[in-house]
């Protein structure tokens, strides 16, 4: 594995998006992973529609039929991959633009599918495996506890105490070998995470969190997706 890796340097990551005042983080995590996978499959970076997921994805937990993806009220990336697999794929952002509300009817047009899911998998809770899957398969959909993100401005977040109760969906796009952590007086490796709160949040829309201890549950729910070429 390389010491440092960042899919932004390889053209697999679209610009930072903004979910607005809507609990649709899960849809941005899903599209980000499929955008990267589609780039690897086709060579084209295409921004995909979160609004399609918000409006049309009501995939439910197979064991709890009343727990379903539900637009601004929340969802889960793996359920969204399952929807995308079943529905045929996702449209382009420009063909189904984001509104940040979930009161609209589903306007999915099968004739305008831009990316298709071939398959998706969950990655084991092992940071080397997460890094290997990131490098091999593209950006990964991950869940995290976001309590420290409300006040985050920059640097590498490495809280001494952080709940592992997952409440936010984001996109893992890379990692770095070392960023100086003054309190620990040593270099600390970190993950690079794309968020969906606009470019004015964090480090130009990105969050850095230290690697090595499943901090804030970042290793707990990691998904990789593969795309089918539609061209």
């Amino acid at each position: 594995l390389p010491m440092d890796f960042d899919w932004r340097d390889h053209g697999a990551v679209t610009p930072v998006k903004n979910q607005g005042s809507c609990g649709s983080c899960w849809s941005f995590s899903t599209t980000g992973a499929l955008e990267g996978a589609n780039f690897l499959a086709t060579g084209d970076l295409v921004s995909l529609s979160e609004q399609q997921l918000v409006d049309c994805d009501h995939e439910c937990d197979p064991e709890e039929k009343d727990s379903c993806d539900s637009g601004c009220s929340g969802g889960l990336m793996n359920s969204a991959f399952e929807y995308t697999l079943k529905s045929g794929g996702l449209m382009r952002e420009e063909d189904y633009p984001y509104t940040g509300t979930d009161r609209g009817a589903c306007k999915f047009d099968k004739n305008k599918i831009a990316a298709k899911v071939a398959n998706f998998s969950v990655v084991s809770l092992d940071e080397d495996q997460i890094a290997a899957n990131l490098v091999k398969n593209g950006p990964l959909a991950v869940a995290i506890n976001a309590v420290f993100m409300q006040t985050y401005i920059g640097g590498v977040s490495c809280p001494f105490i952080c709940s592992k109760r997952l409440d936010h969906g984001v996109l893992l796009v890379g990692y770095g070998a070392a960023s100086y952590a003054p309190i620990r007086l040593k270099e600390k490796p970190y993950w690079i995470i794309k968020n969906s709160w606009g470019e004015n949040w964090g480090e130009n829309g990105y969050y850095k969190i230290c690697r090595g201890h499943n901090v804030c549950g970042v290793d707990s729910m990691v998904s990789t997706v593969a795309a089918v070429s539609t061209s």
Partner: protein
Amino acid sequence: NDDLLIRQVVDHGDGGGAVDENSLVNADHHFTIFKRKFGKVYATQEEHDYRFSVFKANLRRARRHQKLDPAAVHGVTQFSDLTPREFRRQFLGLNRRLRLPSDAHKAPILPTND
């Protein structure tokens, strides 16, 4: 010692939104900057006063986060006038009741040496 740790990581130039030991003393000034920077307008004086109280609570929270997370910089963000509950409701959205299917395909173990 806490203050010493904070000084190691906080930008004392234009502030950049980071909290320091003076932030709470100058909370009204920071709130004015916050409103201008993020275009915040409140409909009534009551709403304004309530948001200011939330803002001050979040300054204290940012200081706590700074102590717990000294390698990062914590401070005023676009969410500084929201309670933690409002923040979770409006900007998070991972549905914890949904679980990974029991038959979820597990990614094959990849070689990581060399």
